């Protein structure tokens, strides 16, 4: 009995130990699978069973201020064939079976996609030559819906079709330099497309499911994360004014042989850009037709020495500081040699002239302006450049935007101290130039420059609305006095006859700026400008025109027709009433 029990106990112990070992092994394995390698294994299993498709989000549109489309996403189609299966097939034509040969089929495809039949056939035979079991050969991409439907109607069994999102620019080069463009794969490359990519780009969605044998989705395993379409960017650009400005600019730029030009139209009360026309213009739908250096926006990215249009800034600063008035007098010689050693000339020889400040503006006398300008120290004038927004990038934040180039007042040499009074010795962008005139026209209050109204989402909400808080730069009285002087320029300067807008009072200033040669001196090329606003008694629109190097007419007369036509068109299209009060009449000389 005792012996039996002993054996039983030994067996029992052995069994317990054996079972324990096996259990321990199982538990270890379990922990290894469920805990240690859990994520790797489940990922591997999902990879084998789960599959998914990307749901493409639609990129938002870029709209002009009236809602018309400047850039939009469209669907294009791709046709491909299975070369291995390409061959004769039967087609039902009016109830009778017809045999269509491969040649016939490729000719039919070619006629629709715009290739020769043999060319299509070659794509198939080449694919077969590379791989006799080839199942894929691309025939054509970027097909329209009509082409797709025509191809489908051919009922060729070995053709397949796929969708590929594309982008079109229905208005072509209208605001092309501003709108920008996207690359082959739809990636933003320039302009607003790049600047507001975060608004325009949507978030792709994804649908995932576990697949059974045969690749069919198992019921109840489909998880869909819907795509979030991009928002629409609404610009402040007026499509028609933009087009007219570009039209007028291009015609005149070609007539005078200018290398490039810019027209800027800005709303006085808001600082909104209604047009930023550039020549040469880029058609975002055909980018390669434009030279690489002309594809961006010079208005934002390329600063230049502005010239005499910036005498307005000096005059505004002088009057705001109370040191001169439009009737202050000066004797303007041809050549002025200030005590600091600078050497100032007027553009053409003349005898001494007895001019008022208004007269200096009308005659655009550098020597006269220098004698007024030296009444303010360099730091004060530098502070005005700052307040007028001439030393920093505009609020738009355009890709590659420049904030102009100007040395600190302390670093100005003798010549620069004077040159900055009449728009030389520093560079600004066309946008900064327009903003200067907006400030004067708006009673001395500078509004932030706006190009974008905001990002409009599918649910109607608008986000990213830019700030529109103005800052006072000069007193309303100083702004009015400068405006009156600019009206005198419009009436009395030598180009007055060329800029007359019948029925309206216009204020403007001309500029003919020498351009740096890149070696510290000035080249023989000029940049001619005209900047102003209308109607002068209650300014609504700033128009600023710049033409670089007009070889056939090297003066501001080259830009006069553009300024006149664009101003007229803006006033007309916005229904501005003709002026009824007479223009001021300030004394120009004594």
């Amino acid at each position, binding site marked *: 009995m005792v012996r*039996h*029990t002993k054996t*039983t106990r030994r067996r029992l112990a052995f069994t317990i130990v054996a079972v324990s070992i096996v259990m321990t092994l199982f538990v270890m394995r379990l922990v290894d699978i469920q805990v240690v390698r859990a994520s790797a294994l489940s990922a591997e299993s999902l990879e084998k069973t789960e599959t998914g498709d990307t749901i493409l989000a639609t990129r938002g549109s870029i709209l002009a201020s009236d809602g*018309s*489309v400047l850039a*939009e996403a*469209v*669907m294009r189609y791709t046709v491909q064939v299975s070369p291995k299966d390409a061959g004769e097939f039967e087609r039902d034509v009016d109830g009778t079976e017809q045999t269509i040969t491969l040649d016939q089929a490729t000719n039919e495809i070619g006629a629709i996609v715009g290739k020769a039949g043999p060319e299509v056939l070659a794509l198939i035979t080449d694919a077969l030559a590379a791989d006799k079991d080839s199942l894929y050969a691309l025939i054509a991409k970027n097909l*329209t*819906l*009509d082409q797709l439907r025509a191809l489908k109607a051919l009922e060729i069994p070995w053709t397949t079709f796929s969708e590929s999102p594309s982008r*079109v*620019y*229905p*208005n*072509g*080069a*209208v605001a092309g330099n501003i709108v920008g463009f996207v690359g082959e794969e739809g990636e933003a490359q320039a302009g607003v497309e790049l600047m507001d990519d975060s608004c325009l780009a949507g978030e792709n969605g994804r649908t995932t499911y576990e697949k059974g044998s045969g690749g069919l989705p198992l019921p109840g395993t489909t998880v869909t994360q819907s795509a979030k379409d991009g928002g629409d960017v609404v610009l402040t650009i007026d*499509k*028609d004014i933009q*087009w*007219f400005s*570009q*039209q*007028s600019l*291009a*015609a005149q730029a*070609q007539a005078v042989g200018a290398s490039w030009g810019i027209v800027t139209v800005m709303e006085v009360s808001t600082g909104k850009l209604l047009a930023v026309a550039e020549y040469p*213009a880029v*058609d975002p*739908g*055909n980018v390669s*037709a434009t030279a690489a250096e002309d594809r961006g926006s010079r208005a934002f990215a390329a600063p230049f020495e502005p010239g005499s249009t910036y005498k307005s800034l000096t005059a505004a600063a002088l009057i705001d500081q109370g040191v001169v008035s439009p009737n202050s007098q000066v004797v303007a010689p041809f050549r002025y040699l200030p005590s600091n050693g600078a050497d100032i000339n007027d553009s053409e020889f003349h005898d001494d002239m007895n001019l008022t400040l208004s007269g200096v503006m009308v005659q655009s006398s550098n020597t006269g302006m220098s004698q007024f300008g030296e009444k303010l120290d360099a730091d004060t004038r530098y502070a005005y450049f700052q307040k007028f927004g001439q030393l920093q990038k505009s609020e738009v934040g355009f890709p590659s935007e420049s904030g102009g180039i100007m040395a600190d007042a302390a670093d100005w040499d003798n010549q620069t101290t004077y040159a900055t009074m009449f728009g030389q010795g520093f560079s600004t962008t066309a946008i900064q130039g327009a903003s200067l005139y907006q400030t004067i026209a708006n009673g001395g209050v500078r509004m932030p420059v706006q190009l974008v109204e905001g990002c409009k989402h599918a649910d109607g909400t608008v986000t990213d609305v830019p700030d529109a808080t103005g800052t006072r730069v000069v007193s309303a009285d100083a702004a009015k006095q400068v405006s009156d002087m600019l009206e005198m320029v419009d009436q009395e300067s030598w180009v007055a006859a060329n800029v007359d807008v*019948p*029925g309206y009072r216009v204020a403007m200033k001309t500029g003919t700026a020498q351009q740096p040669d890149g070696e510290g001196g000035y080249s023989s090329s000029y940049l001619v400008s005209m900047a102003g606003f209308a109607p002068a008694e209650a300014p609504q629109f700033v128009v600023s025109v710049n033409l670089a190097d007009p070889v056939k007419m090297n003066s501001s007369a080259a830009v006069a027709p553009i300024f006149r*036509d664009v101003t*007229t*068109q803006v*006033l*007309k299209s916005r*229904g501005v*009433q*003709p002026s*009824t009060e007479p223009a001021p009449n300030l004394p120009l000389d004594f």
Partner: protein
Amino acid sequence: MSGATAALDLAPDRFGRAKPRPERLAPERRHIRAVLPGALAKTRPRPLYAVIVVGAVIAIVSGQLLLSVGLSQGAYQIQQLEGQQVELGRTSAALAEDLDRLASPQYLAVNAQALGMVGNSLPSYLRLSDGAVLGTPTPAAASTSPIFGATLVPNAQTATIPLVGGQNPAAADGASSPDAGTTPVPLQDGLPSPTTR
């Protein structure tokens, strides 16, 4: 669970302590009796139940069949309608795209010019409040009109769309506008439409 436990279980038996228990249980057991085959045989089978059951089965099976036929019919219809919706959506998008192209200022301007229209750069207004005429009304002439050349502001999207009267937009450039002014091109088939349509 072997020898040791068995030995313990057996122990009470040997001393005869647990004996009365089986006696007490015995009478209760007598209530349970085997059902004799004869008891069932006495009840005659009722055909009505069989008919009901078979009928119900047939009804359920055929009902399910009809339901699934109906469902799959509906699924086909849904698929067909969804396909139609996709096609109509594509058509709508393509037409909207065409409309955007036709509304481009370049295309409108060269078309207007081809029809003999000229731009008026000297606007005048009639003020409704007092009937005053603002500005000097002047007839617009081709000579003072800005020339709208299709190539000045290019548009790849409208380059292939014919103008009214079937003109080629490239041919109807600035140079031809004075002729267009004297011989207006008649509007033949309503508004022009893209060649692709």
